[in-house]
C-alpha cells in the first residue's frame, strides 16, 4: 500500500493519453487526420468540390491521385470534401440528437412520474416506426435539404439516446447525493445539470461515438435510396452509391469512400472502448 498520490484526477488527460493503448492512439490519430482533412478541405484538395477536371474514370496518376469519378471530378478532392460534408453533417446531426435525447432523458429521469411516462411512451412510438421508413416519410414531406436531413435524422437518433440517458440518469437520480440535493431544496435544473449530468457524461460520450457511426450509416443508406445528401455535394455515402457498380468490374474506386467510412467508425469505436475503460477506472474482469 505504498503509493504516492498522482496529479489531480481529470486534469491528467494528457498524461493519460500517453499511456493509452496502441489501439486508442491509432484511433485518435485517425480521428485527428479526418478532422484536419475536414477542416482544411479547400486547402488540401487540388481541385474544386464539383469541378470537372478531366474525363470520367481517369486512372490514378500524378495529376489525379485517385483518378476521377463518373463525371470527371477529381476523386481525391471529392474524398477530402466528402470528409468535410459527411463528418460535418454527421457531427451536427449527432450533436442535435444528443441535445434532444439527452435533455429529454434527463428530464424524464429527474421528474419521473407523468413526465417520464409521457416522454417514454412518445419514444416508444417513434421507435416502433422503422427508422428508414420514418426518414423516408419525413424527408418526403420536408424535402431533402441538408438542414431538414440533419433535423430528421437527429430526431430519429434521439430516441436511443433518450433511452440510454434516462436509464443511466435514473441510476444517478436515485443515488444519495441527488437525494441530498433534493433535501437541500435544489431545483430541477441544478439537479439535472450539476448533479446528474457530470456523472453520466462518460456513458454519453461513449454513446456519442457509436451514435455518430450509426448516423453516418443512416445517411449513406438514405443516399443510397436517393434521399440523403444531394449531388453535387460530395459525401461518402453517395460516392459509394454512385460508383458501386464498378465493384462488379473489379474496380476498387468505390472501396475508397466505403473504406473511409469503415476506418473512421473503427477508429471512433477504438477510442470509445478505451475511453470507457479509462473513465470507469476499473479493470475488466
Amino acid at each position: 500500500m505504498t503509493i504516492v498520490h498522482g496529479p489531480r484526477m481529470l486534469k491528467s488527460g494528457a498524461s493519460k493519453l500517453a499511456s493509452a493503448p496502441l489501439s486508442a492512439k491509432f484511433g485518435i490519430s485517425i480521428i485527428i487526420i479526418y478532422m484536419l482533412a475536414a477542416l482544411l478541405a479547400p486547402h488540401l484538395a487540388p481541385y474544386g468540390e464539383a469541378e470537372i477536371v478531366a474525363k470520367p474514370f481517369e486512372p490514378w496518376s500524378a495529376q489525379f491521385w485517385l483518378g476521377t469519378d463518373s463525371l470527371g471530378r477529381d476523386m481525391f478532392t471529392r474524398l477530402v470534401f466528402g470528409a468535410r460534408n459527411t463528418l460535418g453533417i454527421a457531427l451536427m446531426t449527432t450533436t442535435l440528437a444528443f441535445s434532444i435525447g439527452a435533455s429529454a432523458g434527463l428530464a424524464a429521469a429527474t421528474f419521473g412520474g407523468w413526465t417520464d411516462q409521457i416522454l417514454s411512451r412518445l419514444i416508444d412510438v417513434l421507435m416502433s416506426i422503422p427508422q428508414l421508413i420514418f426518414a423516408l416519410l419525413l424527408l418526403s414531406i420536408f424535402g431533402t435539404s441538408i438542414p431538414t436531413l440533419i433535423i430528421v435524422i437527429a430526431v430519429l437518433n434521439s430516441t436511443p439516446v433518450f433511452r440510454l440517458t434516462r436509464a443511466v440518469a435514473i441510476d444517478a437520480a436515485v443515488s444519495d447525493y441527488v437525494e441530498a440535493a433534493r433535501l437541500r431544496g435544489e431545483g430541477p435544473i441544478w439537479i439535472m445539470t450539476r448533479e446528474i449530468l457530470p456523472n453520466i457524461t462518460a456513458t454519453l460520450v461513449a454513446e456519442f461515438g457509436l451514435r455518430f457511426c450509426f448516423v453516418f450509416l443512416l445517411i449513406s443508406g438514405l443516399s443510397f435510396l436517393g434521399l440523403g445528401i444531394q449531388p453535387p455535394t460530395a459525401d461518402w455515402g453517395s460516392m459509394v452509391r454512385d460508383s458501386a457498380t464498378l465493384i462488379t468490374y473489379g474496380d476498387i474506386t468505390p472501396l475508397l469512400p466505403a473504406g473511409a467510412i469503415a476506418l473512421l467508425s473503427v477508429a471512433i469505436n477504438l477510442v470509445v472502448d478505451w475511453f470507457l475503460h479509462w473513465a470507469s477506472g476499473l479493470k475488466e474482469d
Partner: protein
Amino acid sequence: MTPISKIISQRVALGALTLWIVSLIVFAGVQFLPGDVATELLGQSATPEAVAALRKSMGLDIPLYLRYFDWLGSILRGNFGTALANGRDIAELIKPRLFNTLFLAVSAAVISVPLALLGGIVAALYRNTFIDRAINVVTLASISVPEFFVAYILILVLAVHAGILPSLSDVDSETSVLGRLTAIALPSLTLAVVVLAHMMRMTRTSIINLLGNQYIETARLKGLPEWRVLVRHALPNALAPIATVIVLNLAYLITGVVVVEVVFVYPGLGQLIVDSVQKRDVPVVQACSLIFAATYVLLNLTADILSIIANPRLMHPK
C-alpha cells in the same frame, strides 16, 4: 404468476396504445406529403380534370378525419381495405410480401444468432487476447460499412466470380423451399453480417459485465474451467440483455431491410412501403407501418417475456 400476467397485460395494453398513435402519425404524415396518389399516379400526364376524376373515384374528396375513422373501423374488423392505386385487396397484396420478409429475417437470424452467441462467448473467454481483438476489429469493420456495400461485395465474390449463388432473389409463391433458400442466400448472408457484429459485441459485453459478480468468483473457486464459468454461470444471467439486443436486431431484420431488398430485388415489405410512400397510397402505407410497428411491439414483448423467464425472481417468487 399473477405479477407476471399483470406485467404482460400492461405491456400488451401499452403496445396497443403505441400502435394506435403510430397509425395516427402515419396517417397524418402521409397527408402532409406533397401531392397525392392521383397526381403521383398520373405523373406528367396529370391534367386537373384527370386528377379530379381520379380523386373522386378513390374517395379522396371525403374529409380527412372521416377517412381516418373509416379506416380505423375497418382495421378493427380485420379489414385492411384496398389499395388506392390499383384497387387491390391490401391483405392479399401484403401477405406474400410479409411472408418473404419473415422468411428472409428468419434465415438471417438462423445464421447470425448462433454465430453471435458463439463469437461473443469466445471473445469473452479469450478477452483481451489476440483472438478477442481480432473478433473486435472484424465486427467493428462489418458494423461500419454500409450494408449495400456488403451486399455488392458478396455479389462480386459469390455471384459474379464464383458463380455459386444468384445475385437476384427471384422468388414467387411457387418457388420451392430449396429454391427459396438458394435465392435468398446472399441477402440473408448480407443481413447476417450486418446484425452479427452488434449482437456479438453485446453478448461479449453482457458476459464480461457479469464477471465482476461474486458468484462468478464462487464458481471459479469451485475449480470450474473458465468456459464453464462463462457458459453455466455468466450466460444465464446475461440472457436478458442479450435477448433484448437479439430482439432489436430481429426487428431490424424485418423492418429495416429496404436497402438489401432493393439490391437483391427481393419482393419484401420494405420495397412495398417505399413504393407506396412514393405513390402516396395511404392505406398501403398505413397497413405496412402498422405491421412494422406491431412487429416491433410484439418482439419487444417477447424480449420482456424472455427476460421474465430468464429471471428466477419473477418466475419463482418467494
